[in-house]
């Protein structure tokens, strides 16, 4: 299986504060990889760095064998990485249709067809096509957020806490959708607080603490590891 994303010894942060102190990880083709860890570990920071929203001070990010370190977000998106931020992840004053359209902004062809596919993955959104997203519920908004990111047929989908703020039932729904998306061939890199549920659908996982790698292994291995369980899975 080819490695599509490789992060090597990344250092970076906000302004004077360094949050990531040499973090490494990788995603292979077709995998679901989850990053867990306590608050402040740098999980979201890592995502933003991969996306180009943050310039790393050291280290490399390699995607599809190309060095994308330091590129701007819209260049990285054009390469095939799409991102769903944890919050503020929709355009509230635009309709569902328009949000998806914006997701496909740089697509020159076939966006109607892709929209149909997205509505098939999220059938609940079909009757809300012309509704402004600010009027939707939390769960529906999250679906729009993920749908928007799918519009460009990403090779790699980055999800920052996809289950945040959702009821337990909706959390399960969202994770089922994530599995479905992965089955269609999209590789997924996820950051999650809902560590257990996320690891249960992941091929591999990383534990990040205070900007450092603490553990790496298969989803099962992490779930079965007692020490990690106590510290980070809230046993």
């Amino acid at each position: 299986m080819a490695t599509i994303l490789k992060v090597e010894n990344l250092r970076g942060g906000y302004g004077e504060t360094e949050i990531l102190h040499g973090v490494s990880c990788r995603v292979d083709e077709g995998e679901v990889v989850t990053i867990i860890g306590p608050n402040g570990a740098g999980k979201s920071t890592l995502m933003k760095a991969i996306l180009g929203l943050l310039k790393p001070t050291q280290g490399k990010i390699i995607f599809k064998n190309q060095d994308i370190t330091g590129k701007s977000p819209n260049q990285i998106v054009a390469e095939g990485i799409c991102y769903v931020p944890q919050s503020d992840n929709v355009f509230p004053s635009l309709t569902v249709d328009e949000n998806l359209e914006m997701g496909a902004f740089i697509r020159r062809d076939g966006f109607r067809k892709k929209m149909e596919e997205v509505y098939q993955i999220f059938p609940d959104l079909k009757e809300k096509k012309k509704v402004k997203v600010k009027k939707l519920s939390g769960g529906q908004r999250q679906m729009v957020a993920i749908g928007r990111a799918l519009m460009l047929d990403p090779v790699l989908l980055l999800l920052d806490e996809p289950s945040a703020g959702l009821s337990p039932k909706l959390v399960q729904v969202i994770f089922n959708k994530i599995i479905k998306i992965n089955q269609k061939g999209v590789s997924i890199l996820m950051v999650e607080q809902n560590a257990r549920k996320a690891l249960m659908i992941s091929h591999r996982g990383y534990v990040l603490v205070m900007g450092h790698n603490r553990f790496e292994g298969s989803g099962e291995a992490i779930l079965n590891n007692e020490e990690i369980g106590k510290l980070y899975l809230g046993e």
Partner: protein
Amino acid sequence: MEITSRIPQLVVYGLVSGSIITLGAIGLSLTYGILRFANFAHGDVMATGAFLAFAFLGFFQGLNLPSTPFHPLSFGLPLLLAFILSMIATGGVAIGIDRVIYKRLRTTGRITLLISSVGVAFILRNALQFIWGPDPRYYIKKIQIAIRIPGLGVRIKPDEIFIIAVASCLVIFLHFFLTNTRMGKAMRATSDNMDLAQVSGIDTENVIKWTWAIGSALAAAGGVLAGIENKFITPNLGWNMLLPIFAAVILGGIGSPYGAMLGGMIIGLSAEISTAFISTSYKPAVAFIIMVVMLLIKPRGLLGEK
């Protein structure tokens, strides 16, 4: 009673002045929505548009174009061409100013941008005065007689009908642009959330250029229409309009071009109608009071979301 009988006529004046204020307010709201700063130079952009039109007018009058006025308006082809060219040129000037000044300050705070825009305002206004002098420059030399509208008991000049019609058309075009074109939707998206727009692949620097171009073209239109209404323009035209424009934007909700349209008309109408009850010298105060009241009771404005 005598006072209320004057109101319909004041409504007419209010529609005219409201149309001009609206065109200025829309641009201010658009750039605030996307760049998150209050552009104090926007009034002077209106004045720049007015003076560029004056320059183009001179040029077109110099060529041997048919220049008989379009009856019953008081101007003809030269001014019309100058109007259109001025909108395009002013859009270009704004993009230039952004590239030279505001672009370098993108990551600094709102206050820095605001103050730099005050500087730009000074530069524009003084450049206009340096080139054209402080005295009034005339678009039109003839006096126009107002026509009576049957049944409504008001008079309106044909030029004023033109002003209201042009402003309405521009507003409708803008609405169509924002809701039906790719760039228009990208502008709305970037205004909602610039980071998300970037990670969706939208080239936000390009969106910013378009925002400056459209906002400033509308401002130029406002400036030219103000010149048509008053028959002449002076370098202070823009700075003098800054208060009503800001009041309109705050009233309507900063960041919302539709709010700016609503706010512009309300400010225009209120200022004119107020003269039925209080001295005309208080007109600017009306805009000011409305703005302060809005900030106190609903700072987000009537249609604002931020």
